[in-house]
């Protein structure tokens, strides 16, 4: 037990928690925007792959790091447009289209990678985002290392979460997005376009998912690997449910989740890791996600029109 306490009070553990939480927060915010507008976006896993690939490739081709982030976001929005076109005006099954977009996006990244780097056996590295030096706060003992030695993209992730919460709850646009996920007919009656709002939400949300993916290549690691997203997108779908479709709770969920992930990596090095198979530790995030879904199922406040396509003039 004392080993766990040692881990929990170490500054490097908390720095890792925030680092692991960052891509989850970005992608979870993206999924949350889509779902609040009434569209389940299962393209998330593939869109994160596309973000990870395009952001990294742009930087490898000589763009600045923020240019890579922008490219990833643009690519994610393109796939979001594909998803939105099929699910919103055409009202196709959000399950099937989402999985289709994930398969298409993942395959596109693999295809483009092999096309651009045909001979490469190990992917080339780029120079990733470095931790920002924060004056005063960064020099604090323990806290400085635990909380204030993160890259700019991590700060951006938390800023995005704040912006999403503000927009959803404090602006007319946010009200319209929330309303379109609860009662699209009422929104239409106000003279607003249900199709426009929903498509916009899916496109913006997909852009954020892609930036979440780009975090992996541009801030966490410095290369692109085929399997690097490894189910994080699906975990974010679970995090939206866990956060009861609220940005603040979803961020807390992502941090809690990241804490378990950081803990399991460290527990593998302890006596516990010598007894239990390492696969059990690796499975922990997925097991926790399922448990979170079960735990929240009773009191989840699902947007009323989630997964219900809207066709004008139809009741």
């Amino acid at each position, binding site marked *: 037990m004392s080993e766990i306490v040692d881990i929990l009070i170490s500054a490097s553990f908390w720095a890792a928690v925030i680092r692991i939480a960052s891509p989850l927060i970005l992608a979870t915010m993206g999924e949350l925007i889509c779902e609040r507008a009434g569209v389940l976006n299962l393209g998330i896993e593939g869109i994160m792959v596309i973000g990870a690939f395009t952001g990294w490739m742009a930087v490898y081709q000589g763009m600045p790091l923020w240019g890579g982030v922008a490219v990833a976001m643009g690519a994610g929005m393109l796939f979001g447009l594909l998803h939105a076109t099929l699910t919103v005006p055409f009202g196709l099954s959000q399950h099937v289209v989402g999985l*289709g977009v994930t398969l298409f996006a993942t395959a596109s990244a693999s295809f483009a990678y092999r096309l651009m780097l045909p001979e490469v056996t190990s992917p080339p590295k780029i120079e990733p985002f470095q931790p920002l030096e924060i004056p005063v706060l960064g020099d604090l003992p323990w806290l400085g290392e635990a909380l204030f030695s993160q890259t700019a993209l991590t700060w951006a992730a938390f800023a995005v979460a704040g912006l999403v919460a503000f927009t959803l709850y404090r602006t007319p646009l946010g009200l319209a997005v929330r309303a379109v996920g609860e009662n699209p007919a009422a929104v239409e009656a106000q003279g607003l376009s249900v199709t426009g709002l929903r498509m916009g939400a899916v496109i913006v949300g997909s852009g954020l998912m892609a930036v979440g993916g780009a975090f992996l290549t541009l801030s966490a690691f410095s290369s692109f690997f085929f399997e690097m997203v490894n189910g994080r997108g699906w975990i974010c779908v679970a995090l939206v449910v866990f956060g009861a479709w609220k940005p603040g709770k979803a961020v807390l969920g992502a941090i809690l989740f990241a804490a378990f992930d950081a803990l399991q990596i460290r527990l593998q090095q302890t006596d516990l890791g010598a007894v239990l198979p390492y696969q059990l530790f690796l499975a922990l995030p997925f097991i926790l996600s399922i448990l979170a879904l079960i735990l929240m199922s009773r009191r989840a406040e699902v947007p009323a029109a989630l997964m219900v396509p809207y*066709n004008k003039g139809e009741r």
Partner: protein
Amino acid sequence: MRLEPIANPSPARRLGLPALALVATLGVAMLLALVAGANPFAILGQIATGALGSKLAILETLNRATPLIFTGLAIAVAFRAKLWNIGAEAQLYAGAIMAVVLGTGALGSPLVLPVSALAAMLAGAALLLGPVLLKTRLGVDEVVTTLLLNFIMLLFVSYLLEGPMKDPMGMGWPKSTPLIPEARLPRLVEGLRLHWGFALAIIAAVIVWVIQTRTTLGFEIRAVGQNPEAARFAGMPVNAVMVKTALLSGGLAALAGWSEVAGLKGHLSSDLSPGFGYTGIIVAMLALLHPLGVVVTAIFVAGIFVGSDAMSRAAGVPTYIADMLLATALLFMVLAILLTKVRVVRG
């Protein structure tokens, strides 16, 4: 724009649009070839020759189609009831594990094959039962739970291969002890590299077709899929139908893994399935969820994979073109199917 139902779609519309979806996919293939700097007309030929050009190629395609028929059937059965089973990959491995558990000496001939097939189906069914009960009892979305289970199952397989099932003669490769000869599926025709799994897959398709068209369960599955509220109002046990569908679907997906181990590989490894569970979704959707159609589309999809491998070696176009084409075909096809039933009007 607005969608307006078409009362009586003409046969030209019902058949023409899905055909157009396939033609459009070929167009995308040619476009991708251009991007990759290859001759767009030549690669279509190279894919076709690679898939069907020789006896060896045809057998390879049919071997590759075998697990896809099983997973395609699993998805078709589930999606028909609007049960979104995305966990065929995990159920496949559950079946593969049972093939190894019972096929490495625990049972002998003639019991081993039927018993291990049955055990595989039970294991796959059990794996889907959890998510379905969570859905019917607590309203937990089965898409996410079945997807997450895929990752847990792959880690479990990795654990088995490095621990209890490890082949001591494996030279460090993570693979299981090989099956005893009695536990292997025999070849369909002596001297040809095609095993009985293929025939069993077709038999399974026929059985599923009979269940869907000739039994009460089939009728109930369709009713629940079309309108669960109406089905419940009509007195159908909707949750019980969901559970039965899940057992059938999970069992079918497990047979994919069972037949790969017992028929093709003879052992379990963690690369047994290059995503057969996910590709099954494409197979089922292209077949419009029709069980006999699944046989045809599984062979088509397998042909794209096998053909693209051959084309890739010859033309230098990355083999991932196959995955792109199949995802494109899926998206075009769902749109085409919708447009057979509705038309787009202004306003």
